[in-house]
């Protein structure tokens, strides 16, 4: 007790020390913030912002090839929450704190920000890529607004039916080639005590998947018209799709709507789930669960109406060059090279999903066979519903479709279509204003 130094000096010293540490940390924090956001990245680094943390290895692989081609390499930032990510891009794009490149969505979501003037016109890049044969020209429409292209396809996800080979073998069914056969397969699986189709969406965007599929199964033309505001959700085609969806629920083909798609690989492996209609980007969760081509297969769902054109839903995120990019010229050089076959090959080999460049097929991925099928069948590719109409309209309709999946009666389906049309009337008016 006696040896203890008097308290006041110790207290003061501690306080001073704490003050210094605090001030130092604050200075360091402000320094970092300035350094990484409001100034150009050092050396040959270009910054790229995106909302998927698991793609960093694939970006690194693409970056290595890009560096050889353009001299620039990518430093990727990931904001893994989609809402937060959108706020960050919207808010930073008009300031000097933006990244040089960023990921967005194609279709109307891209139009939304193109109207705001935060992205660079990439029409010349598209012209060049099309001339080189690096991209299917039919994709250009969903990246364009006002006659100009504003982004490049980051990847290309198809929406096929994933199926468990084990479940199919146990039930003695084969891959269906017509919609009627598909219905038979589902009925056989149901009778065997297996959930025929896993379909989440009670509280998620996934409620659009089956709605879209049944619409394009009846008429891809109608789907494109209704999503562009040229047709009504109260049209007979939409009603027929909704009635079919309801009937499939009544027939016991679907899982409960609050299942989690991340459980599907496990259920495929144990043979308790037959199929799931999903984006090929899901392939990684199957691979990580140890499932390979011997366990999981994919097929394009045949059209409901045998006379309708075979169509498939396609999703492509968009790679944009910020209008305010610190290193705009270098970013444009990277955009020029992005769709090149060698860059895309390195990118999709790590990503496991398909590329917008038909020559770059992912090596050793479950998707490769499907991509070859697509090359052979050449189905009509339609933009995913999420990107195919103005965002506010889509978000509202997603919630209505989720509500339908919870109570999938015909009456409820018709009520949902009516809501969707009311919303379409209001939101198209707002969009065109």
């Amino acid at each position, binding site marked *: 007790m006696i040896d203890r130094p008097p308290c006041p000096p110790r207290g003061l010293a501690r306080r001073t020390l704490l003050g210094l540490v605090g001030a130092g940390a604050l200075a360091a924090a402000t320094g970092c913030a300035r350094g990484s956001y409001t100034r150009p990245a050092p050396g040959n680094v270009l910054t790229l912002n995106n909302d998927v943390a698991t793609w960093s290895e694939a970006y690194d692989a693409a970056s290595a090839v890009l560096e050889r081609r353009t001299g620039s390499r990518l430093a990727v930032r990931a904001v893994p929450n989609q*809402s937060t990510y959108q706020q960050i891009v919207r808010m930073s794009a008009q300031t000097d704190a933006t990244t040089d490149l960023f990921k967005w969505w194609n279709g109307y979501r891209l139009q939304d920000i193109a*109207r*705001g003037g935060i992205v660079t016109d990439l029409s010349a890049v598209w012209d060049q890529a099309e001339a080189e044969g690096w991209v299917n020209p039919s994709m250009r429409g969903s990246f364009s607004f006002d006659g100009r292209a504003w982004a490049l396809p980051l990847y290309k996800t198809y929406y096929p039916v994933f199926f468990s080979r084990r479940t199919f073998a146990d039930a003695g069914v084969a891959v269906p080639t017509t919609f009627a056969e598909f219905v038979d397969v589902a009925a056989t699986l149901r009778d065997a005590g297996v959930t025929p189709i896993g379909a989440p969406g009670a509280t998620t965007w996934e409620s659009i998947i089956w709605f879209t599929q049944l619409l394009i199964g009846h008429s891809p033309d109608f789907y494109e018209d209704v999503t562009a505001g040229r047709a009504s959700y109260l049209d007979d085609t939409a009603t027929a799709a909704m009635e079919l969806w309801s009937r499939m629920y009544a027939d016991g083909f679907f899982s409960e709507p*609050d299942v989690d798609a991340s459980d599907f690989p496990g259920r495929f492996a144990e043979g308790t789930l037959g199929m799931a209609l999903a984006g090929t980007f899901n392939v990684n969760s199957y691979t990580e669960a140890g499932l390979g081509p011997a366990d999981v297969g994919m097929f394009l769902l045949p059209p409901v109406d045998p006379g309708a054109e075979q169509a498939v839903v396609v999703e492509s995120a968009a790679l944009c060059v910020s209008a305010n990019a610190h290193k705009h010229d270098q970013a444009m050089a990277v955009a020029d090279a992005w769709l090149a076959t060698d860059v895309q090959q390195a990118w999709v080999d790590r990503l496991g999903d398909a590329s917008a460049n038909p020559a770059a097929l992912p090596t050793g991925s479950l998707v490769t066979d499907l991509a070859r099928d697509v090359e052979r069948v050449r189905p009509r590719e339609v933009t995913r519903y999420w990107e195919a109409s103005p965002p506010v309209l889509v978000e509202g309709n997603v*919630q209505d479709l989720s509500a339908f999946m*919870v*109570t999938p009666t015909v009456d409820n389906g018709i009520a949902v279509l009516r809501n969707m049309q009311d919303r379409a009337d209001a939101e198209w008016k707002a969009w065109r204003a």
Partner: protein
Amino acid sequence: MTVLTPAAEVERPASTPAAGPARRGPRSVLAVALFLAPAVALVGVLMIVPFLDTAYRSFFNDNGLSRTFVGLDNYVTLLTSSGFGQTLVNTLMWVVGTLALPVLIGLLIAVGTHELRWGALARFSLVLPYALSGAATAVVWTFVLRDDGALNAALAALGLAHLEQGWLLEWPLNTVVMIVASTWQGTGVAVILFLIGLQAIPPSTIEAAKLDGASGFRLFWHITLPQLRPITVVVVGISVVNSLKTFDIVWLLSKGGPGTASETLALTMYRETFTLARYGAGAAVAVVLTVVVVAVSWLYLRRQLQAN
């Protein structure tokens, strides 16, 4: 609590005629202002200014990239939208549910375990969920309430398959079970506050009542409960405000669905602002929510504090 204590203290001196503010000299006014300045500045910068900014934004049509003045359009759209009535009903259900369950159960647990030998252990186990974050609670309850979740599995295992429900899929059932989930988590704070209240009751009043022959329910109703009034004001006040701004548990359990059936005002605010990028419309909901919270709190506290 931090808001209540000074308010309560301000009320009391005002009612005693001895200390009138008129007698303060300029120096003392300056001193009071200086002492108050940091708190006023903090509240001003962190609450009043953002609120005024939000109110200002609510008069614009704003998508984050461009902004046009639309006057009261956002309010008109909100108040006339088909989902607004449902949102208010849900918010009201949360207020009533939060008052009926956590406050009542908290009071019963506090009183029931206050003098028990193993009371501390019982209280600990009941208060423990309060240490969890709202998000963690919601994740746990998702596993319980999902259609293929633990509750339905348990019912099936007990031979009660006919009682299986889509707990989170049907309104109003989903709102009710979410209130139960939030009760499981939120009762702890009511228990703690009521215990503080119980400890503040002078033992002499209880002993006197016992000598007069009061016991059991009569003792509780006529002696204990009236003396818990100040703390009840606090618990009810906190519960009402918390229930009006319920967000995390609903967002994580049902996303306000199916459709917008279980949405509360706070969820509407989030959806408009962050999902739909309609910042003006989101700001309008925020202003309406703030007005409701402030009005309810003010009416309630004014009544209660005056009564005290």
